[in-house]
């Protein structure tokens, strides 16, 4: 393998989103006829890297060479033309079209200028067979297929484009165990046919079984490359964590507070995303939600906040069962819940509206009498909040979109603190904000807990969970797999349980439920 010339190289690739650095002088070399695994924590830059490879985003600097000559991709279609095909995490299938339509979508076979449906059917059947998914009918509509079948169609669609380099980004995350086995056979066959495969996964056992070569990414850089199997799981985890930055976290209280339980869930299930979750949060406690991204943490927070329909199980507030049917019900009245949502730009703020309007938006009912806003009271409370959170803004009447990411996030938090919530749910609040603001938020979180708030805190940053939380619940596949407390709350334990490499191989046992 080492004797062959590299098929594809990326050198000195950098990419920034606003002020946030996603990739910094990253390198990658891909060889034909091998499976190359890419590892890294959430936000290490893996997704950006492959988006650049696939022509979805353009790099700020750096060069790419294919077969030794330099290339640039203006669009996904251009990358496809060059033989680079990516299977994305977010599906690129068109729901109202049939499986066969989707498989040939970018280049349908034509006869007399019209799509040749017979040829299309043939291509689709071949591609499905090659992907090991001939049980899927080419005429079925994609929207009628379950997620795992759609993922198989994605793979078939990629194969129909006759790729030279195939990128699989968490392509197995939605698959059943039986499908995973079939996909592996396909991938190994493709390797023997001379394709280059890039495989991105959080599942260590998959990588061990499949990969020839591994590259670890951390903080937007490739930090290590090694032949698969030459390092132990422990060593790999160490590489992924690194020791690049450390946060200053406020001290935790010595022992768990003996306060009453405020928020409790019993056997909470929803669709196929939440699986029998039970947990409780006491007043004054910061409870973390850990695990890989997309294991049901966000859904759990939405479930508490009254957004999800068809919940099974019980939610209790102050020990009494409640039924919360809307964010209005969750935030108003006795419950007093607040949710700092996932995406501050689309869910937390109205970017074109002013800082003032955004700050008072969640507390309008408290700031008004008979529907008329008491502007003096509004001003007082806003001044308090701007002071408390040290929000840096050129004024209260400028659009909130003009603020920096960190200050925007402070506005989202402040707008909820204006209601003095008793229960605070945070959905990855430090994503994409600067280190200084992060530290202020850690302090604030502890301060709120000390003042008696019950806090449920989801973060994709493991450091943060360890530094801020009294306890961390690790989710996997919509279920709480482990609870880490006190001295047991270490990075190693967190990552190991997030990757579910803890001996008990859960995947095989419950593979068919998707």
């Amino acid at each position, binding site marked *: 393998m080492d004797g062959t010339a590299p098929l594809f190289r990326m050198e000195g690739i950098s990419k920034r989103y606003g002020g946030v650095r996603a990739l910094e002088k990253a390198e990658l070399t891909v060889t034909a006829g091998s499976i190359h695994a890419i590892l890294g924590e959430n936000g290490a830059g893996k997704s950006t890297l492959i988006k650049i490879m696939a022509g979805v985003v353009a790099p700020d600097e750096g060069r790419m060479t294919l077969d030794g000559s330099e290339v640039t991709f203006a669009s996904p279609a251009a990358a496809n033309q060059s033989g680079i095909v990516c299977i994305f995490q977010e599906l690129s299938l068109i729901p109202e079209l049939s499986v066969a339509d989707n498989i040939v979508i970018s280049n349908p076979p034509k006869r007399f200028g019209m799509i040749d449906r017979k040829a299309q059917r043939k291509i689709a059947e071949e591609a499905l067979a090659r992907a090991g998914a001939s049980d899927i009918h080419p005429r079925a509509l994609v929207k009628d297929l379950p997620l795992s079948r759609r993922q198989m169609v994605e793979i078939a669609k990629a194969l129909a484009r006759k790729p030279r380099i195939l990128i699989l980004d968490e392509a197995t995350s939605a698959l059943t165990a039986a499908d995973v086995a079939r996909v592996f056979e396909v991938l190994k066959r493709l390797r023997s046919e001379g394709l280059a495969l890039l495989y991105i996964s959080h599942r260590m056992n998959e990588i061990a079984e499949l990969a020839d070569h591994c590259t670890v990414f951390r903080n937007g850089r490739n930090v290590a490359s090694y032949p698969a199997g030459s390092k132990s799981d422990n060593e790999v985890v160490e590489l992924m964590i690194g020791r690049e930055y450390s946060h200053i976290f406020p001290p935790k209280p010595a022992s768990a507070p003996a306060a009453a339980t405020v928020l409790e869930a019993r056997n909470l299930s929803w669709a196929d995303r939440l699986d029998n979750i039970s947990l409780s949060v006491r007043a004054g406690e910061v409870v973390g939600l850990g695990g890989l991204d997309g294991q049901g943490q966000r859904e759990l927070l939405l479930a508490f*906040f009254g*957004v999800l329909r068809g919940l099974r199980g019980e939610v209790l507030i102050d020990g009494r069962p409640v039924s919360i049917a*809307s*964010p*209005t019900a*969750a*935030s*108003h009245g006795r419950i007093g819940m607040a*949710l700092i*949502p996932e995406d501050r730009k*689309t*869910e*937390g*703020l*109205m*970017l*074109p*509206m002013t800082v003032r*309007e955004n700050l*008072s*938006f*969640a507390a*309008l*009912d408290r*700031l*008004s009498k008979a*529907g*008329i*806003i008491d*502007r003096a009271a509004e001003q007082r409370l806003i001044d308090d909040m701007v002071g408390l959170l040290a929000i840096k803004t050129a004024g209260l009447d400028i659009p909130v979109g003009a603020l920096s990411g960190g200050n925007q996030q402070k506005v989202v938090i402040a*707008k909820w603190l204006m209601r003095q919530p008793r229960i605070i749910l945070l959905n990855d609040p430090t994503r994409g904000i600067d280190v200084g603001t992060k530290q202020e938020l850690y302090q604030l979180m502890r301060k709120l807990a000390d003042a008696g708030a019950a806090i449920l805190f989801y973060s994709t940053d493991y450091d943060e969970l360890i530094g801020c939380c009294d306890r961390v619940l690790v989710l996997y596949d919509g279920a709480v797999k482990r609870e880490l407390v006190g001295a047991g709350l270490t990075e190693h334990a967190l990552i190991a349980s997030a990757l579910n490499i803890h001996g008990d191989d859960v995947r095989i046992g419950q593979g068919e439920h998707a």
Partner: protein
Amino acid sequence: MSETTHGGIMGGIAGRMPKFIRRADPAVLTAFACIVVLLLLGSLYSRNFLSPEYLLQQLKVASFLGVIATGMMLVILLGQIDLSVPWAVAAGAMMACAAAAYGSVGVALAIPFGVLCGVAIGIVNGIGVAYLRIPSMIITLATNAVAQGLMVVYTGGFSPQDSATAAMRYLATGFTIPGVPNAVIIWALIGAAMVFALTRTSFGRAVYGIGNRERAAYLSGIDTRRVVMIAFAVSGGLSAFGGVLLAGYASKAAQSMGDAYLLPSIAAVVLGGTSILGGRGSYLGTVAGVILITLLQSILSVMQMPEAGRQIIYGVVIVAMLLLYGRAPASR
């Protein structure tokens, strides 16, 4: 991209202006500038154009459109649209006149009854949009058709014989303050109420919030469905009230009296700088838009421009203005 274009052009001009103007929406300024240009053009054509009588007469004509456009603006601020205006106007007018036929109680209740009919149409729209999440343009078209059907059945397909009450005529054509038509006062009152509702109440904040990002408004604990519902009810009510005034102005209701108000009411709101996508716009802009449209109509009719030319000019002006201000962001 649209932001930068108009920021670039307008920014250059606005930079040399006093501060209070610089802070105003460039779209509103443009609309007012167009009004001045139209007046000047008109005065070239006829000296009467700048006389107080003529201007007051224009303001009076504008107030009917102003009342209707007020409701339309509320709905557009939410990022929706109300296409049931034509028959909400006609239903308000016809029902008010019809009530007048039922003795003194009917005469007394004529105006509220007419407005309530419009509110009812608006509530059906609101249920469809807020609770059934049917696209507003579809459900409001459908309620428009149903309202039309009801009116046709009621009137037998002819213009109704009932005439407007004295109160309706007084509101539309009378003078409480010497020199100022009542219709103008009514528009001013409704406008003031709308400005207050939009800027000083939690309802108004919620309207802008929903128009900007309904998802964020919902997650902020706003009962977004109730707000949408109320806005459509208000829009229906104001359309019907506009119809009541028009019936008072003409002394009776007519079959297709509302048709002439759909496009102008949308145009007035949009030309006044309110984003058709919702969330952005001021009532001052709508006032400017209403006056602009009315003057445009007036000039075209003074110039004896046939209906055909008016329709074409409307359409072209609206598309042109939208291309300047109302474009969606580029997808990539």
